[in-house]
């Protein structure tokens, strides 16, 4: 296998954009794509995208319109526009495709746009998929909750630990201007809410919203030509995994794709001590337990010890390793295809010191990690960013 660190520092992020996430009843996918892309253009100082953007990588989980939806919204024609999807890891995969295309020497500057518009479907959560007789019920809450009985049984954690994650992410979401939910919750609210799929209640579950997020990537040697302080891509990867529901040796204590992607991307970036070297992380909190497992699977703490670190406040804004500083999928919102790009948006703000009331202190010289999982989960994407 090729040397994994070969991609490190070759590509920089010079502009990011994100529309307001939420129930954007009055916005079409095109409206949101334009909002996100033009914010990224402005951030990067791009005044003539027709000339300055060489290629576009766009993706969504729900759209069936392919690359045209984005190309038409931005009128970016006569250039390569590709559409990719990787369930809820789509956003990170789009970043990866953009990075690879530049690292391969094909393009100088590319635009990445992830988006989704689930609120046109008339249901508050994801639809129950009934296209077979097997594998039912088919809802994300039902997939991700399957790790709860086993984890609780082995490590003695419970809903009271999950509650703290939900409360943290609700608090952080209040500080992010573009987040969907700006409403703090209490432990009482958490336990009073209805159950979706045990042990997940309403406040364990991400808010499915509309949204679009964009990033401008360029060759690192060209990055200084753009207006803002660039952020280096230290590593980005995607790993596919087996369906955990039929994987014969799945222990339901962690999700395999996360562990595999972690090993790969830490090697790319040169991370050997995740807890010490990572200053801020945006992780895939589609459900509270997913965030808890990810603390352990990304090496922020030992397997089985997450509840102690949650109790210590390690992952809160003022903690040792703040996680989901903008509220995460839980409250910032989860427009599936956009989420991985939104995480990069937040990490770029944090690394630049521009995150306002939610700015993490002591992030200088440290890495910012974003983590996406998709499917049952059957995929994981991780991006590591840094300033130096």
């Amino acid at each position: 296998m090729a040397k994994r660190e070969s991609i490190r520092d070759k590509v920089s992020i010079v502009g990011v954009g994100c529309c307001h996430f939420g129930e954007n009843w009055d916005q079409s996918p095109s409206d949101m794509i334009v909002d996100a892309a033009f914010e990224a253009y402005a951030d990067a100082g791009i005044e003539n995208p027709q000339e300055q953007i060489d290629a576009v990588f766009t993706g969504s989980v729900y759209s069936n319109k392919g690359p045209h939806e984005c190309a038409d919204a931005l009128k970016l024609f006569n250039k390569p526009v590709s559409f990719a999807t990787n369930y809820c890891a789509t956003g990170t995969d789009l970043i990866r495709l953009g990075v690879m295309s530049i690292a391969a020497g094909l393009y100088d500057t590319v635009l990445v746009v992830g988006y989704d518009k689930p609120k046109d479907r008339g249901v508050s959560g994801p639809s129950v998929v009934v296209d077979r007789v097997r594998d039912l019920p088919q809802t994300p809450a039902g997939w991700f909750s399957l790790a709860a009985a086993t984890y609780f049984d082995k490590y003695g954690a419970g809903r009271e630990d999950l509650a703290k994650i939900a409360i943290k992410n609700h608090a952080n979401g209040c500080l992010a201007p573009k987040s969907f939910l700006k409403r703090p919750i209490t432990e009482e609210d958490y336990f009073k809410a209805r159950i979706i799929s045990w042990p997940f209640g309403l406040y364990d579950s991400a808010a499915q919203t509309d949204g679009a997020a964009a990033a401008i990537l360029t060759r690192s040697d060209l990055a200084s030509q753009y207006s803002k302080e660039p952020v280096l891509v230290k590593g980005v990867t995607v790993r596919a995994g087996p369906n955990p529901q039929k994987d014969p040796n799945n222990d339901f204590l962690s999700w395999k794709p996360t562990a595999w992607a972690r090993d790969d991307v830490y090697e790319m970036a040169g991370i050997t001590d995740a807890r010490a070297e990572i200053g801020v992380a945006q992780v895939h909190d589609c459900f509270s337990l997913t965030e808890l497992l990810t603390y352990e699977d990304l090496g922020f703490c030992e397997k089985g010890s997450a509840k102690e670190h949650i109790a210590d406040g390690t992952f809160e804004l003022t903690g040792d390793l703040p996680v989901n500083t903008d509220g995460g999928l839980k409250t910032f919102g989860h427009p599936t295809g956009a989420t991985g790009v939104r995480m990069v948006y937040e990490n770029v703000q944090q690394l630049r010191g521009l995150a306002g009331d939610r700015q993490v202190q002591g992030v200088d010289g440290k890495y910012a990690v974003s983590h996406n999982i998709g499917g049952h989960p059957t995929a994981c994407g991780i991006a590591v960013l840094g300033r130096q």
Partner: protein
Amino acid sequence: MIGITSYGAYIPRTRLPLSVIGGRPPKEGGPERAVAWNDEDAVTLGAAAAIHCLKDLDRSQVDMLIFASTTLPFQEKQAAALVARVLDLGRDVETTDHTGSTRAGTSALRAAFDAVKAGSARSVLVIASDARMAAPKSGMEANFGDGAAAFLVSDGDPIATLEGAHAVSDEVTDVWRPAGHEFTHSWEDRFVIQESFTPNMHAALAGFFESSGTQIEDYQRVALYAPDARSHAGLAKAAGVTTDAIQPPLYGRLGNAGTAFAPLLLVAALEAARPGEKILLANFGNGADVTAFTTTDAVEKLGDRRGVAWNLARRRVVESYDDYIKAKGLAATEWEAGTNPGLSATILFRERDDDLSLLGQQCNQCGAIQFPAQRLCETCFAKDDFARVRLSDRTGKVVTYTFDFFFPTPNPPTIVTITDVDGARIHLQVVEIEAEQVAIGQEVEFVFRKIHESGGRPNYYWKGIPKPD
């Protein structure tokens, strides 16, 4: 010697107390009826009875399957072929449905004997199953019950031989259900009893006694179909059946199980019978028929069978009439059931060995068992080198679980597990257990159930139930 070589029964675990129909709470010991719940219908009841009947027997010997029911889920598309696939009987099986009358079960049984006697079949599986619906709060709703019985008729070492049979036919619109109607209709019950049930039963009995040269006193067990307890008692008395000989008709426990009713009484008689007993079975529906059996020494040697007693001992009492109405699909809903074409027929076709027969595959290279069938081994990645293995008659163990409140069902939550069956992992709903009783390591066995009604038709798959003691 030709005869019944095995039997099985299935009565849904759910019981609806008649007091609940009347808007009162359940009363322990009060009358009740068996109810096919939302994931059960005549096919699933019949499949369960057949699985119990075939326990520990070589299924490859079965070369004919007759499915008898008045509540076939499809008017066109055979229930017998579906159940043959569920039982993994292979392709060289003659399948046929008998329907149209509550006598379909006994006429199927007689046809099975004729087929084996004529040499046109080696071993015939007869299934009689019904899950009839009556209008909410009607007398018939309280009277009906759901269930299924199955018999294997073969030339072998039978537990009971056929001594004779006689049937009479009659054209009368007494109890009927036009095509497309959900509920059974009946003319005034006094007319049904006086002009149809009583004269037809007496005619069949008289004809049978004359042709067989026997009389009622010759029979140690007499199982009589009757629409209700009162007409049952009246017929027994008029026919001269002694109290000792009468097979308890199970009103107030099972209910009138239609096509399955008389066959279930025969199962109950066989369960209790000693060798050398004579059993008389009389059935009714557009005429009447009488069938007589003599038990052999083998009746005491047949291994453990899940019969009527086993089924009646398992109970879950419905506490609320609303729950019953929802489970039977009789509650108004915001959206009408869609008229979409349903699941892709080609996908159902390709996956029928997995979904209907619950066949997993065992890798010839590494030995790992997996489900569903795939081209490459889940464990060693070997390509196209597998043997199919039937998982439906194995037991599994719960690896992990969740309780899903989101999936549409009349009684949330849906209990969902990952169940391990000899190494294969199956995403499996588990039913007939309370959420708080589910545990990692729970042993489950497989039951064939209706999974949803996409396309306005039943779509079936397997679920787990806690392994019975």
